């Protein structure tokens, strides 16, 4: 498998302030790679470096096999870019603006512009200054997709889009990838990335905290568990849960008898890691109710953020440390794999 983007030791200083502290990551061709991180983490700066809008202070970048600093116009023709702070001219229409970008970009089929505009439900003949934020964002997406680039670099692509259009956007991303394109996108919200991305890098304060697959995040993520059982005692349930790896925050109590035919024990806990062992243990019980929540990846990421803080400060005070470590490990493995592939 070839790599569409390889970044090694990327540093960027603005004056004395260093905003990227030596990033390393690689994006496999034909995949969707998501970068998440809070605002100010360095996502936009990284993307601007890929486009040669900003020049790195140190490190090497290879985009589609070329150094963006030296490659010139031919490389940028193969990239579609959506800036994070999208600004559009006021006194023009969407169509005229796209015409101009088509003139300074790769060849564009006029039919494809119309097709995309229909899909995004965007009126190209309105004055851009009268467009809502969401509609401006659609125009930005359109200019990034319209020349069918090999690489899409999209900074906060779904910002301002309503849910229906977001779905449409995810479909466009899938189609582009199916056609062989690579997509590099960023978000400060994980739920956006998890829908689209095959791999996720978590960026914080100019450092990559981890690179992981969405699957790995999912297994690392913490699920909330809640069940009711009859014909058992609180101590037995507590002991049973204690045997399951990955279970924490156990709370067991007996429900008041009123309204219940039999004595009912209610238990809540959190689970990280695979569910198989838990299901086997629970099968011994006479359950009347069971809820195992969808893992909250947002939570998982926050855990990872916290995890790295803890790692720096003596590894104390964290209940889900095991989960964090496992996921960081998985991330490292994936990164290694990418480098040696």
């Amino acid at each position: 498998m070839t790599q569409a983007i390889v970044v090694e030791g990327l540093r960027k200083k603005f004056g004395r302030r260093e905003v990227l502290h030596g990033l390393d990551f690689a994006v496999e061709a034909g995949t969707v790679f998501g970068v998440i991180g809070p605002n100010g983490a360095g996502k936009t700066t990284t993307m601007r470096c890929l486009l040669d809008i900003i020049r790195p202070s140190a490190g090497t970048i290879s985009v589609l096999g070329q150094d963006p600093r030296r490659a010139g116009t031919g490389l940028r023709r193969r990239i579609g870019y959506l800036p994070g702070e999208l600004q559009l001219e006021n006194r023009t229409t969407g169509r005229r603006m796209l015409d101009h970008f088509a003139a300074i970009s790769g060849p564009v089929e006029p039919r494809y512009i119309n097709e995309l505009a229909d899909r995004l439900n965007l009126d190209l003949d309105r004055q851009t200054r009268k467009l809502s934020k969401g509609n401006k964002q659609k125009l930005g997406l359109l200019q990034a997709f319209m020349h069918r680039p090999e690489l899409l670099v999209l900074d906060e692509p779904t910002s301002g889009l309503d849910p229906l259009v977001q779905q449409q956007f995810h479909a466009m991303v899938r189609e582009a990838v199916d056609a062989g394109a690579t997509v590099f996108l960023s978000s400060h919200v994980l739920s956006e990335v998890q829908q689209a991305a095959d791999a996720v890098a978590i960026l914080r304060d100019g450092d990559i905290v981890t690179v992981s697959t969405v699957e790995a995040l999912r297994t690392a993520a913490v699920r909330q568990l809640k069940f009711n059982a009859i014909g058992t005692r609180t101590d037995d349930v507590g002991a049973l849960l204690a045997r399951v790896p990955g279970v924490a925050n156990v709370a067991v109590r007996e429900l008041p008898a009123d309204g219940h035919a039999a004595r009912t024990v209610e238990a809540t806990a959190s689970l990280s890691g695979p569910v198989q062992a838990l299901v086997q243990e629970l099968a011994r019980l006479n359950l009347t109710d069971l809820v195992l929540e969808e893992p909250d990846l947002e939570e998982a990421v926050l855990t990872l953020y916290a995890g790295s803080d803890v790692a720096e400060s003596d590894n104390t005070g964290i209940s889900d440390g095991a989960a964090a470590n496992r996921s960081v490990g998985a991330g490292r493995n994936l990164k290694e794999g990418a480098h040696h592939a």
Partner: protein
Amino acid sequence: MPRILPLFTKALTDSWRSTLAWALGLTGACMLYLPIYPSIGGSSQMQELINALPPQMTKALNYDQIATGPGYTQATLFGLIGFLLMSMASVGWGAAAVGGDEESGLLELTLAHSVTRVQVVLERALAIVVRVAALSILVFVLVLGLNGPAQLNIDVGHLAGAVLLFAALALLSATAALFVGALTGRKVFGVAAGAAVAVLGYVFNAVGRQSPKVEWLLNLSPYHWAYGNSPVVNGADWGVAAGLLGISAALIVLAAVAMQRRDVGV
């Protein structure tokens, strides 16, 4: 479909409104000032009035020469109102071309496409040259048209030379604004640089003409380089025209070089 000079054509079409507005302004200035020459510059009463003014003031305003048609045109149109309008137009265009575009966040998206930074600067500079040339030609045509009716008696060759210097002076302000805008990425710095060239040039000329002690100021004034020998009256100094255009060309190259080396939009 590849188009020829896409950024140049876009810069021109985007600015047709402002070009038209400045063209109307310059037309108005010509129409207001030149036809009244017979009753002002040529009249003996006016000459007495000017003689009664402090000589420093008449020198500063170049009104010491308005007794003749060419001198009047030089002092009022090329030296004052036309210079003012043209400088404002070209400083605005120069500062907006790169610095203003970057500051508004539009340049980032343009540069993400298949263009080089040098190409952006050069095509937009060319668009400024074309606009300045268009306005200058308009002034040439208007003065030529009013030459007979307003009894100006301007030599056509001298007029052509004066218009060339008029354009070159405007371009100097425009390219200074372009260069500083491209260097800093800020429109306001570009405006300041372009305006400084025009205003300081004018002020150095006005002060430098007052006495031999401050005459050296004239050497620092592009305005004086261009208009010191009253080109409408005496014909242009072609070397000066070439020199002004050369400096402008150098500023355009510097703008391209500055742009080439910089982070954009930070």
